[in-house]
């Protein structure tokens, strides 16, 4: 149920994001979702890609600082309140969310959100028992 996310350290200067995407393109690695967290002098690019292990290796070998983290992909209905329901559930279960970002309108129910939480297993259990679909790796990487 856990999926692998690639994080890349980026200095806040021109051409860095281009360099990462160029490298992934050259190695035929397709990006499924991404988000960037930035501060005044650096950023962290987070990626869901089709082959995370290979992407990790390729980036590392090219001198980027990379880390692999486990996150969960949650499917939810694409309607008002869809995200709110899931958030309420996680709040009640006492799950701390570090950050989240959304896929664009794909998947069976229409919306998929990537959650980075502190308590992965508890989050999966809470969602599962309440009938919320937590997507497995294969499904997400191939969306």
């Amino acid at each position: 149920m856990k999926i692998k996310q690639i994080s890349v350290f980026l200095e806040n200067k021109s051409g860095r994001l281009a360099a990462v995407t160029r490298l992934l393109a050259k190695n035929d690695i397709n990006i499924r979702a991404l988000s960037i967290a930035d501060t005044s002098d650096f950023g962290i690019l987070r990626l869901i890609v089709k082959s995370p292990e290979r992407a990790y290796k390729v980036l590392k070998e090219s001198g980027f600082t990379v880390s692999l983290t486990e996150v969960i992909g949650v499917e939810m209905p694409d309607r008002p309140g869809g995200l709110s329901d899931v958030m309420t559930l996680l709040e009640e279960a006492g799950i701390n969310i570090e950050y989240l970002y959304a896929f664009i309108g794909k998947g069976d129910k229409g919306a998929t959100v990537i959650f980075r939480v502190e308590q992965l297993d508890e989050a999966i259990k809470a969602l599962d028992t309440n009938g919320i679909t937590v997507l497995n790796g294969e499904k997400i990487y191939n969306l």
Partner: protein
Amino acid sequence: MYWNEKYECIEEAELKELQLERLKTTVKRAFYNVPFYRKTFQEIGLEPSDIKDLNDLQRLPFTSKKDLRDNYPFGMFAVPMSEIVRIHSSSGTTGKPTVVGYTRHDIEVWSELMARALVCGGATRHDIIQNAYGYGLFTGGLGVHYGCERLGASVIPISGGNTKRQIMIMKDYKSTVLTCTPSYALHIAETMDDMGVDPEELELHHGIFGAEPWSENMRQEIERRLNISAVDIYGLSEVIGPGVGIECQEKDGLHIFSDHFLIEVIDPVTEKPVEPGQMGELVITSLTKEALPIIRYRTRDITSIIPKKCPCGRTHVKVQRFTGRTDDMIIIRGVNVFPSQVESVLLEMGGVEPHYRLIVDRKGTLDTLEVQVEVSEKLFSDKVRGLEEFERRLAHELESTLAISVKVTLVEPRTIERSEGKAVRVIDKRKFS
């Protein structure tokens, strides 16, 4: 364990009395026998009789490496050549070599100091000391050698190089103490690995390393890889050679043998003494040297006086391990900053490779210091918070060490240039006009 308890643990008042008496003698010897000193004293209207207490030391002019070069080769000697029994000199890689001479009594004193240093570093007369310092014009080899003989230990005068033979001899002759430069000690450890020699099989238990600055991390690595206890020894040929100071078993700074050397730590720019505990340039005055009395010698080595008593019982002044040379110093908003200070903060923090760069700039009338640090795999995670916390913590540590505000910037690995293995540490963008 002391070699000479009477002098190493001398009462402070008695030490000061001895120092003053010896300082007066040294000043007289220099004034009446070395034209260079007579000239520099007379230029500021100073007579040997003006030296009445130890504070008068500060009235004496400084001596630099350049002065020794200008008086090449024997111009600084205070005795006729018939009294000189030994000559050493520097390699002269950065200019004319500096030449130093010793009388018979100087060699006696030097041997005594090295015997003290060896004992302080953990050696006894029962040890087999493998002396891998270079023998020759360099003071390291013979300096340590004479100390070993004075101590009564068995010295193996193997000199530097031929590492495989060093290891064979270490095994077969059952050497118990190794003396060499710290980088060579590490090289020996690496070669042992390659040869499949386990340090556990050796009798080696102590190492006394010096002649170049080395970090606490390097000490731990040498101790672990050679399975020994290692201390730092300090000396410079202009003053006598190895045996000016050494760490005791506390491994918390080096004792300077204060009955033979007077030290000061000064601000290299204002040339005024800094407070105990503050970093500055070490200045040494010899108290007993006959052939080459040296007065207020600017060592260019950066250290600070440790203003507290040492539990080992030795009363001689202690200084921090050397962190760099004044040649690397930059002045920011009137504060002296050494790249090595940044490096030691980084090493203490852990989790980062000590790849860093100081960017000095001027915004309006205010100097700014930015410290760029390469982010390492260890430090990096997907969370912004962790990195920001690290930046804040590092900035805080640097500010309390350097006493100026610092902006920390994390940069990608390998963005800080490494030219021939030696990194460019400082970029000064300020324009002085």
